[in-house]
């Protein structure tokens, strides 16, 4: 029983923390963010397993977390409101080469991030080649180039 409670609590707690910290946290790929993810997984393991290192305990925790994931994705599929609440919405941050400053600041994205994504995804060189840039729910920036 404890395995189920631990698994569910950690899943919910992590979801709340990542949702509060904004979309950008998951989309970044700097070395430090990678280290942060490793540290989080270490701390999580201790909370999930406690002192019980049996195979049964691990399986119960995994089944709980995967089932919660399936349940949430099923709910999201059926309700737009829950979908927005859980995953957020995509955000338009660049329009016709111009960075929408207030929206970008609130989303913790700057022009460098947009140019980075533009170079990686589309091979673009300058801001004025970008028609639209959208901060997706995953934290990635997607670029629509000017034709």
């Amino acid at each position, binding site marked *: *029983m*404890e*395995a*189920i409670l631990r698994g569910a609590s950690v899943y919910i707690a992590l979801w709340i923390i990542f949702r509060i910290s904004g979309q950008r946290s998951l989309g970044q790929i700097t070395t430090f963010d990678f280290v942060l993810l490793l540290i989080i997984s270490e701390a999580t393991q201790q909370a999930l397993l406690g*002192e*019980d*290192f*049996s*195979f*049964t*305990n691990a399986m*119960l925790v995994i*089944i*709980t977390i*995967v*089932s919660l994931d*399936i349940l949430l994705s099923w709910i999201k*599929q059926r309700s*737009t409101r829950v*979908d*927005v609440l859980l995953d957020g*919405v*995509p*955000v*338009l941050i660049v*329009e*016709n080469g*111009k960075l*929408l400053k*207030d*929206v970008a600041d609130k989303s913790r994205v700057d022009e460098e991030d947009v140019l980075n994504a533009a170079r990686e995804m589309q091979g673009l060189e300058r801001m004025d080649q970008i028609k639209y840039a959208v901060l997706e729910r995953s934290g990635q920036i997607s670029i629509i180039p000017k034709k």
Partner: protein
Amino acid sequence: MSRMSEDADFKQTPPRKPRTSRRATPPPQELQLSQDMAHLRRSWVAQRIGWAVMLLIIVAALAGAFGQGGPLSQAQATSDDGRLQVRYARVAHYIAPAELDIRLQPGPRATARIWVDNDYLDEVEITGITPPPSRSQLSGGRTLFEFPVDGNAPASVKFNLQMRSAGSLRGHIGMEASTVTIEQLVLP
């Protein structure tokens, strides 16, 4: 178009999702995609069955069927004369802490001697005994633990264990003439 950029509070909500058809249809002819529709339908059915099984496992675990607390996992064994009572977990986990909660009604002597059979002790590791016994003695196929006792009030001793082997375990615990048998299932 420029109005959009000026209005920072412009709500960008996604459009309502259309209800997707439940029936799987094969892909159009011009798309080079080898799809085994029969297999696809079978795997969807198998997935849903799997989800139901996982839900059953979770409900069973919450009830205590896999140990770790819960109504199904706690058990109690009492000796025939009622002087010895052991509370233990019917289901335990391999390499996980477990506990034997022994309640006893002391006799006229100044010490209470609790014995545990060695077959059971071979399968577990005692990590602590609260309160610690004043002495322990090996006797036949058993190990005796002696605790000084003051007065006639019911007392309790706790054995903290770690399960060292998986499978079904049977243990015998006693105090003088009163004996108790415990049966545990240790999950891997």
